């Protein structure tokens, strides 16, 4: 039986060999045929010569999550051949380079073998070794186009578009595509049982990764200053910001820049720069990952206590320490929430899709200025560096930046005695002024040490305590400003909570669970702190699962303490191996627990 537009294909390559761009072209071609796709690039922490995998899931049903097994394996790396064969689902297709024969002990009986003598095909056509290396990848895309029945001109058009201007490159690429396609059409039985066909399932959605969407969110959100230090997997936030800003933010008359990107000497300096800019009234951000967060601790405490807006993007990777720099995890929650010594708390936002990366990036600047505090957007490698089919980015021109409580010269004129830390509005948020605003009013001294309502240094226990209590009040104010959780009601007594990229596999997980007879209500948490919805959700359900990609159940810990939630009601599903959490893993764990608890089948 032929399956259309539903399959997972994995490419096993060696990194630094140009395979990623060929594989991306393949994925994008599916997308252009109207098929929703998700992409996972699993790469090593080095530059050249080690195994790397690239996974594409085509899914009209919108099952974007990772599965433990794949349907098609393009096994181009002899070194990982054994494990690559093992990762195929039974009945799956194994595409390999048959130029050299594969030892029989590495074969499996339950697979469809598709041998293509790629090296041999390439050899007579290209002489340059570098070209041979590159076009190998294009050849197998050509083969796949025939096997899967892809529209060939989608591919050739992409090649032409990609190399517009460098026309010399178009021909060899198309030749390589044709080499593969013609071989397949001639020698293989095409198409196979897994096929694609044009559809309009994509709609007006786009294919973009989270970091790039974040960068665009920063531009739309009015950020003018980006200070950063390179670190995987956050680097492309800053680099995309610079690239887009260099087109979107140029003063036409002068060709001068309405933005600044500073590659700082380290993460301390990066956040210091953001804080200096925030203090001085510009929207500024940094993007980093775990080790950077660790280094930013002292400055995060300063920004919390001195009440300076700052936006930080933490694109999480597998920790602790250097950990696995090219693997994904959600394990910086505790570290960020309580960053820095003393009584501190920092708000976090958890986007689940690239679109939400865009939205939350722009939102973060509003929030940070409204609450005069750092706001950390918690993305991860999975979301940040992989393209996903996601809603198109939207902006409402009627929307205005919420710049928070900043007094201008005129307003200062009207004030008898300015007190930076007075809680005039009872929401815990004082009015601030920017340097240079007024000749003789509103100047004050910002510091990380304790002060009274008029910003005068003090060690008075009363003034100190009032200030700390006001910061708590601000925390409560914050609850009404952050994005509320997303609730999905299925009238169940059982609930599943998740956040960030654990959302991606969830619709498929729910479908599996439903097939087993279990229905669930779900709540996707989008912030810390949360509103009361989370507490209500837990109270309204007999048992609640909380799915996380860390070892220590970090979100659970935060919720329990922030909301005084009964610990015993929450069952943690924890995966922390560094791949993105799989559909299989979640469904399996939930079913196992339900089984242990002897929960009866629903409905």
């Amino acid at each position: 039986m032929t399956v259309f537009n539903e399959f997972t294909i994995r490419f096993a390559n060696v990194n630094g060999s140009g395979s990623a761009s060929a594989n991306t072209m393949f994925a994008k071609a599916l997308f252009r045929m109207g098929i929703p796709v998700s992409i996972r690039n699993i790469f090593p922490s080095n530059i050249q010569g080690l195994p790397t995998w690239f996974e594409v899931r085509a899914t009209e049903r919108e099952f974007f999550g990772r599965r433990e097994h794949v349907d098609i394996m393009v096994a181009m790396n002899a070194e990982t051949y054994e494990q690559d064969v093992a990762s195929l689902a039974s009945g799956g297709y194994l595409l390999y380079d048959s130029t050299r024969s594969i030892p029989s002990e590495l074969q499996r009986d339950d697979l469809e073998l598709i041998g293509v003598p790629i090296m041999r095909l390439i050899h007579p056509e290209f002489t340059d070794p570098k070209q041979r290396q590159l076009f190998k990848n294009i050849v197998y895309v050509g083969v796949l186009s025939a096997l899967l029945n892809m529209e060939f001109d989608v591919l050739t058009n992409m090649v032409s578009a990609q190399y517009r201007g460098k026309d010399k490159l178009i021909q060899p690429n198309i030749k390589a595509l044709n080499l593969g396609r013609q071989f397949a059409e001639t020698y293989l039985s095409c198409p196979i049982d897994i096929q694609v066909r044009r559809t309009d399932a994509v709609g007006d959605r786009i294919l973009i990764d989270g970091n790039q969407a974040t960068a665009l969110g920063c531009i739309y959100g009015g950020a003018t200053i980006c200070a950063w230090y390179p670190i995987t997997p956050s680097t492309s936030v800053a680099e995309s910001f610079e690239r887009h800003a260099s087109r979107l933010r140029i003063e036409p008359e002068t060709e001068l820049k309405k933005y600044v990107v500073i590659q700082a000497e380290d993460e301390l300096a990066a956040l210091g720069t953001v804080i200096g800019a925030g203090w001085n009234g510009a929207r500024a951000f940094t993007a980093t990952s775990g080790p950077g967060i660790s280094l930013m601790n002292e400055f995060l405490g300063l920004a919390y206590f001195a009440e300076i807006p700052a936006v930080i993007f933490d694109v999480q990777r597998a920790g602790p320490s250097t950990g696995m720099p090219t693997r994904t995890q959600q394990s910086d929650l505790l570290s960020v929430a309580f960053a820095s010594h003393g009584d501190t708390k920092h708000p976090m936002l958890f986007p689940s899709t690239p679109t939400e990366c865009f939205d939350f990036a722009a939102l973060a600047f509003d929030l940070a200025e409204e609450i005069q505090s750092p706001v950390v957007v918690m993305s991860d490698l999975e979301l940040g560096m992989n393209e996903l089919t996601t809603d198109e980015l939207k902006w409402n021109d009627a929307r205005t930046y919420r710049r928070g409580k900043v007094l201008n010269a005129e307003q200062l004129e009207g004030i008898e005695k300015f007190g930076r830390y007075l809680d005039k509005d009872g929401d815990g948020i004082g009015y601030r002024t920017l340097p240079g605003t007024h000749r003789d009013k509103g100047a004050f001294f910002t510091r990380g040490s304790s002060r009274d309502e008029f910003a005068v240094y003090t060690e008075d226990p009363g003034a100190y305590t009032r200030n700390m209590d006001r910061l708590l009040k601000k925390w409560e104010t914050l609850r009404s400003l952050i994005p509320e959780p997303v609730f999905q009601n299925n009238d169940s007594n059982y609930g599943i909570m998740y956040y960030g990229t654990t959302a991606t596999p969830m619709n498929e997980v729910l479908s599996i669970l439903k097939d087993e007879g279990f229905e669930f209500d779900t709540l996707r948490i989008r912030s810390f702190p949360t509103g009361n919805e989370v507490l209500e959700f837990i109270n309204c359900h007999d048992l609640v699962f909380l799915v996380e990609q860390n070892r220590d159940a970090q979100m659970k810990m935060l919720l329990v303490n922030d909301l005084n939630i009964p610990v015993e009601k929450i069952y943690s599903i924890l995966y922390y191996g560094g791949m993105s959490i799989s559909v299989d893993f979640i469904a399996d764990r939930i079913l196992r627990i339900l089984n242990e608890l002897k929960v009866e089948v629903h409905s």
Partner: protein
Amino acid sequence: MTFVPKPRVHHPLLDVNEIGLKRRDYEAAVSTLCAGCGHDSVSAAIIQACSELSLPPHRFAKLSGIGCSSKTPSYFLGNSHGFNSVHGRMPSVATGANLANRDLIYVGVSGDGDSASIGLGQFVHVIRRQLNMVYIVDNNGTYGLTKGQFSATNDRGSVSKKGVPNLYAPIDLVSMALQLGASFVARSFSGDKQQLVPLLKAAFLHKGFAFLDIISPCVMFNNHTGSTKSYDYVRDHLEEVVRSNYIAPRDEIEIHYEPGTSKKVQLHDGSQLNLTKLSESYDPSDRIGAMSYVQQALADGVVVTGLLYVEEDINECHDILQTIRQPLNQLTEDALCPGADKLKKINNMFR
């Protein structure tokens, strides 16, 4: 520093300066430092320099790290905003502030502990960025606020109050600034107002990174015999190699010096610096020569002071980055947000 009203001839006897302000408009909260602390003299010199230059106090932004020295921004220019940040990280905060609004005058005050130890990396990199600011180190060779540990600028063999000699060679921030290409490098002494005030004036009007290493004795922990950062020791070992004199644009005073030993530097606002070489072998426009001279003097135990190096017309950070003239923090939504239509086109890039 840039974008300040042009100062005119200064009349020291008048009560108010060119912009109608009195000296006390440049003052601030009373110092809580120890009586006699060199840092207070530096603050006083800043007050005098700014008031004589008729710079508007509220157009300053004062930044600092942590330490007795870093407290001093509370004690001058009370009508300007100040930011007492964290230990050793003032340079990055200053960078962010300056990038956000290029139109203010940025003055950073740091200590030798703050800049030469914990903050050394930031010190070096803010110079590399050529940030347009005045960077002052109140250098007392000790950690004042934590009660007298040696700092990294202390000289080998200089003795602590308890009689223990310092074991390590000093880090000389002036040599470092010279080597790293700071466009204005000076050393002075908190006890020498005559020298310090003109240097500060020059620094405030310099466009680019102006570094002043000011030896500023700590009377509490490092002013005893045997300390090379005591008032007495510094007075005895000081060698002024270049004297700088600030000349306002319309200043008519003619200054005569021996030909060949004097040099005029045109500041970007039209005023001038007159540099007088007091040492035959010193040339404040020769960066590499200056470096050698200072290092040799250091080896010989001589404290070289004066405006050691100055280069006008360099590209400061904003020039390098090619930012627009208007301060970034004044750009409004219209200027910043590309809008919904543009976003439609951007979406198409991802299809």
